[in-house]
């Protein structure tokens, strides 16, 4: 596992955003990385918050799993990096 920067968060930090987007609590759900196959709870994924949006990466291979961007009041979600989200 590669070391991460000090201010990287985890999926707990976007619990509210996930409820907003999916309509339900998601941090305990298991997501599978489409690149390396690592499966784990959303709460343990690496989360990078920026004014422009939120990026969620695989903790093992750094692959981008989810991207959230707010465009004119609508949250757009790109989840192509996830093979599966139960």
């Amino acid at each position, binding site marked *: 596992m590669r070391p991460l920067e000090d201010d990287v*968060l*985890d999926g707990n*930090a976007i619990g509210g955003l996930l409820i907003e987007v999916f309509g339900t609590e998601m941090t305990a759900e298991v997501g599978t990385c489409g690149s390396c196959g690592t499966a784990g709870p959303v*709460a343990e994924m690496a989360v990078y918050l920026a004014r422009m949006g939120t990026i969620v990466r695989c903790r093992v291979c750094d692959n981008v799993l989810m991207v959230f961007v707010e465009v004119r009041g609508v949250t757009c979600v790109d989840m192509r990096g996830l093979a599966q989200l139960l």
Partner: protein
Amino acid sequence: MEGTAVRGRLNDQVPRKTGAWQTATVDSVLDETPTVRTIALAVPHWPGHQAGQHLDIRLTADDGYHAERSYSIASAPGEPVAITVERLDDGEVSPYLTEELRPGDEIELRGPIGGYFVWDPAADSGPLLLAAGGSGVVPLRAILRYRSEVGSSVPARLLYSVRTLADVIYRAELARPADGVEVIYTLTRKQPAGWTGYARRVDQAMITEVAWPVAMAPLAYVCGPTNFVEAVAADLVALGYPPQRVKTERFGATGTP
């Protein structure tokens, strides 16, 4: 005035959607340390919460700019909702919450949030290993309060890493732990004269001494700055803790180690 009255009636009648923002009122504030304050809130549509969950606060400036932050809930399920906030020097939100906010003031929040970093004694009876770095103690304190509230007798150990004794949050409460609860401090920057406890950052040797043996099927909750959480979680896994028995919540680079 009429508009406000209508909005008030609508707010009361609209059913609460999961994740909806609502307006809460500050009930009381309590300074835990010179930079840390606990804020008790009166939340009109609070559905109850679990130990370990958090809520989101939203502040809106006059020009419509929003700032949102997440804060762990410091109170146990069934107790009035309270959050404990640490003032960060370069913070955008924490100076307002710890210095400006007064009883009677209103604040927007949503919650409770979180289904992973929660402790449900009915679901798991393993001994608890709680590891706190600085303000990471907040959700762990909620877990300990809940343990007392339900009369649980699972053995619990809190390893609490802080810079100095003066930085300990909930110090009086932690000085009188419930039966079966041990509180172990490590003071990383300055120790009082005669201190015989740990005096360094958490490392593998300390974790090996403090952690429950793996054979007891313990459950670990690690919370605090990212560096702290990464190190402690790795140490626990190295000791043989199954990764799924080590729950983590990272607060980023902020918060005292």
